[in-house]
């Protein structure tokens, strides 16, 4: 369990203050894959770096597994950091060392016996699928392979928490998928908590169960991924979701071009099993025109979106919208 309370970080350069994080409160449960999404400059990287104090928060509190990490002394912090793995956008591999030595680094730091190190590194390299690259140097690897090495290194100490700072941002879409699959496998098999900083909703959609959306140093929306996809509250959340599905079409659809009422429906996996729209048409005196639709596969379920034009009496339209709401479909009028 990670508890972030009233966290603030102010940077000060040449007398100019910049509030990178403003009063952030988050609760991250064990085994969550928790996404923190935001545009660049939103403060998300600063936030994750506060979790292992690569960045010192200005005020607030952070507790990880019951340990108040801001109260740790230098040496205590150093030892505590061993329990938190971290991966980075630029991989941060040692360029002069082989894949083996890179993965072994945390174990060298633990002063583990050479024989045990060898066993463990072989296991880790096998786990991330890079057994044959053991003696290669980072310059000989692709971006995805480099990130796999970094992941193997980050989990070498059997951490409880893994921090991922834009780990897939410099990878192509296909490689991103494979790295995300690896992270998901790690979370499932090793039972660790992963905190993912990203600016790609695709990442959140694929592996996260919860998401916080940051803007200007503030967490503006926080919920399960299903709920955010189903019913995004803020404009930023909507635009992030729009970036991963056909919702972008919504912008092209201009309500003034239609005589009926335009509504946007959002529904979760279970609701999509029922023929709700056809029931609605049968029950009420309305005509329905489907303008756009999409289904997003999330980590645990799927979220569907439909944009409909409802034509008919105002009262009938109201009734049909109430009907949809009763069926656990979120309804939003597009104006």
């Amino acid at each position: 369990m990670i508890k972030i309370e009233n966290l603030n970080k102010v940077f000060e350069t040449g007398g100019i203050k910049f509030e990178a994080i403003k009063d952030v409160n988050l609760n991250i449960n064990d085994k969550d894959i928790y996404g923190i999404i935001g545009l660049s400059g939103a403060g998300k990287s600063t936030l994750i770096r506060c979790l292992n104090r690569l960045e010192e928060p200005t005020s607030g509190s952070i507790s990880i597994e019951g340990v108040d990490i801001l109260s740790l002394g230098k040496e205590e912090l150093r030892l505590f950091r061993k329990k938190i793995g971290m991966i980075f956008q630029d991989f941060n591999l040692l360029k002069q060392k082989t894949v083996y030595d890179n993965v072994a680094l945390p174990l060298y730091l633990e002063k583990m016996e050479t024989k045990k190190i060898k066993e463990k590194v072989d296991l880790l390299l096998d786990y991330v699928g890079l057994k044959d690259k053991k003696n290669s140097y980072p310059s000989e690897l692709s971006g995805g392979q480099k990130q796999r090495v970094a992941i193997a290194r980050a989990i070498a100490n059997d951490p409880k928490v893994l921090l991922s700072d834009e780990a897939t941002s410099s990878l192509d879409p296909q490689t991103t998928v494979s790295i995300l699959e690896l992270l998901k496998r790690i979370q499932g098999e090793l039972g660790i908590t992963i905190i993912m900083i990203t600016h790609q909703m695709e990442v959140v959609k694929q592996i996260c169960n919860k998401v916080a959306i940051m803007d200007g140093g503030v967490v503006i929306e926080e919920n399960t991924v299903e709920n955010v996809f189903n019913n995004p509250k803020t404009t930023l959340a909507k635009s992030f979701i729009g970036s991963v599905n056909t919702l972008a079409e919504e912008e092209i659809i201009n309500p003034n071009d239609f005589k009926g009422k335009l509504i946007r429906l959002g529904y979760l996996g279970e609701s999509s099993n029922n023929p709700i729209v056809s029931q609605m048409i049968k029950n009420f005196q309305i005509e329905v025109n489907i303008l756009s639709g999409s289904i997003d596969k999330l980590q645990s379920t799927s979220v569907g979106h439909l944009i409909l034009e409802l034509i008919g009496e105002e009262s009938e339209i109201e009734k049909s919208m109430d009907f949809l709401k009763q069926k656990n479909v979120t309804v939003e009028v597009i104006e």
Partner: protein
Amino acid sequence: MKDLFLEGTIETLYMVSLSTIFSLLMGFPLGLLLVLTEKGGIWPKPQFNKVLDGVINVLRSIPFIILMILVFPLSNLIVQKSIGTTATIVPLSIAAAPFVARIMETSIREIDRGVIEMSQSLGSSVGEIIKYILIPEALPSIVSGITLVIINIIGYSAMAGALGGGGLGDIAIRFGLYKSGEKHNMYIALIIIILLVQSVQFIGNRIMFKIDKK
């Protein structure tokens, strides 16, 4: 005549190799300290850093020939002589040490800040960062820097010849300046010095390319 050059070459090699070792021993830790103690560094000691930086700059500003005279008393104290081949090692080492420090500093600065943060995220101590990150990652750059240092010391050692330092520089100056009929000896000494510099550069480059995995 052949013996003269053989002896001169051996003297030069003796001066250069020992001075290189001593200057590395002094400059290496200084360079490390320069990076570690800077503001925002791994082991920040900004006051100390400023002083160290100043001292290194002052040392680097002193022309070698003057430094040599200035450290006569020190040479005397250490090797019981103020002139001669062995005595010259003292000013040569002192002159090259701040240069080594700067080279060390630049080489370490080339390391990506992210790599150092990565090692901090793994819970490394300052000593561990030096051992596992800074030195191994900067090594190719340090090697190429050491090549420069040796070449510099060869140059200085030739200059030391003017003040009775011995070696090839001494021969070149003696024959070039004072014995008008034997100027060719100066050229021979010069050619040997050029060959020495070339081989050091060649070997240095070879080692660097071999160890650099970037």
